[in-house]
């Protein structure tokens, strides 16, 4: 119990003191996960839209694959990305292992199936006749898709929230491909793991509060966007 109280007191101190290391870790977490989420949406939204709207022979297979990807364990992703980015790996020449870029790559692989899968389900929830109606009103294919996105915006923002949530809270892959290097690839989750392993519960709790606060703020902003009428 004392640990918890100490942790909260320490967290308040850290927050108000503006500890440069904590600020740096927080900003890096936000940056890495933000960029990963953005890339996931840029891949997942068009891919999900394509799979939701276009019928072709192997569509069911691809949708199943995406759905499986939604439950991909981060450590497995970490392992695969590590193998590829390892100095002697196929992409070793890029020298990305233990860099923030490696974390972004791993996080994109974790979150884009979520973005794609939730896009598929949100568009498939719309009345299928709506597409015919939009085309009948003279919409171009692109205008039709924009209108469908607009109609499904509540569910699409939920996809964005889920994608961000999956990466900001993820630790396994970040640890494996980022290495938790101080001043370079240490993010909130990996720092919490480190502090806990050192027995520095107060710092770990402080960082956890910051992580939760950050997740709440981003989700609050997205939820406000989602619930805004028109």
């Amino acid at each position, binding site marked *: 119990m004392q640990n918890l109280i100490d942790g909260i007191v320490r967290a308040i101190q850290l927050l108000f003191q503006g500890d440069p290391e904590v600020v740096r870790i927080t900003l890096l977490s936000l940056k890495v996960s933000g960029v990963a989420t953005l890339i996931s949406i840029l891949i997942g939204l068009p891919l999900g839209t394509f799979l939701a709207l276009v019928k072709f022979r192997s569509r069911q297979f691809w949708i199943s694959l995406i759905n499986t990807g939604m439950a991909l364990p981060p450590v497995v992703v970490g392992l695969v990305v590590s193998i590829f980015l390892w100095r002697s790996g196929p992409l070793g020449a890029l020298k990305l292992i233990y860099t923030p870029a490696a974390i972004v790559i791993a996080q994109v692989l974790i979150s884009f199936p979520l973005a794609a899968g939730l896009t598929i389900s949100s568009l498939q929830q719309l*009345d299928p*006749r*709506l597409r*015919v*109606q939009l*085309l*009948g*009103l*003279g*919409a*171009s294919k692109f*205008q039709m898709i924009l*209108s469908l996105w*607009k*109609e499904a915006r509540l569910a699409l923002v939920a996809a964005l929230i889920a994608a961000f949530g999956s990466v900001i809270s993820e630790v396994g892959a970040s640890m494996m491909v980022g290495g938790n290097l101080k001043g370079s690839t240490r993010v909130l989750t990996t720092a919490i793991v480190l502090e806990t392993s050192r027995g520095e519960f107060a710092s770990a709790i402080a960082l956890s509060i910051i992580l939760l606060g950050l997740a709440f703020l981003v989700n609050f902003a997205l939820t406000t966007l989602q619930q805004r009428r*028109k």
Partner: protein
Amino acid sequence: MTSLLEIHDLLVKADQTVILDLTELVVEKDEVLVVVGPNGAGKSTLLQVVAGLKKYSSGSVKFKDAPDLTDLAYRRKISTVYQSPLLLSGTVESNIGQGLKFRGIPEKEIRRRVEYWMEQLHISHLAKRRSGSLSGGEAQRVSLARAFCLETELILMDEPFSALDTPTQLELLRDLREIFSRTNQTCIYVTHDLEEGLAIGDRVAVLFKGHLHQLDSVSHVFSHPNTPEVAAFVGVENIIPGKVEKQLEDLVQVRANGSLFDVVSDLTPGKPVFICLRPEDITLYNIPEEVKPSSARNRLHCRVTQLINQGPLTRVLLEAGFNLTALVTRPSAKEMGLEVGKEVIAVFKSTAIHLIESSTELRN
């Protein structure tokens, strides 16, 4: 009259099943062409083809000078109204202006047209309402306004009122007919409800199982159906196969199931035909009473097999060597003492019968 849309030798298949097989169908400018037929007749498929939303196996569909039906420029020359209004989220006015926005029409013009058509469809007071809060009738008015405000050369309507309750349906039908009469809007109006079609159409195309059975003025289809299927669809309940036996002066005699019918027709003897007789054109008499001499030339001895009360009327099912249905008022049925097993005389005029030439020879 100039034609707006010409369909020739159109064949639409799904897998190997023929859904639509039309030799010719021409839609004239300024007309409301009603396409009627039961479920599975291919009506909605026809509309989808014309809308450029369904591919066809062979044939040609030409809309004036449009080279390709799936072309966006062509699709923007037509607008559609479906059974379900399928409104987007947002306000009524934003929904009505949606098609114009797709076309990149300036905001000022959009506002002008939206206001005008909201007024025409009596929904100006709903302008700021959200689409989700509308009743079925209101939503369908929005859907109509959305289609009309595009001011396209052709509007396609697919059972627009079939999901509405009867009073709302009648009200909308009345308003729509008024708009058609004022605007000279060309429209293909699909319905399975013949009465709705009769109320709104200039011409009627009757489809069965993907084939066009008849294309005529509304009144002509009603009075002169040209196949037994069309006859049944327009309410002819007595369709009896027979053969022209004799030609009399201005009349022919048709033999059917052992009885002879006098019919006003110029068909030549030997022709297999269907005798079409509406139940309301049959007058019943009790047998002990002498049937007074009248101009009605056809009299049949029948036996009542069933009585079905339908509001103020009674449908009388009769057996005369073949089944016959007559329609009498309930007081008449009561006064005549009609009951199952009673023998009566059915009388009808030779002009009440419409003959349809049969393409198949009767076996005997």
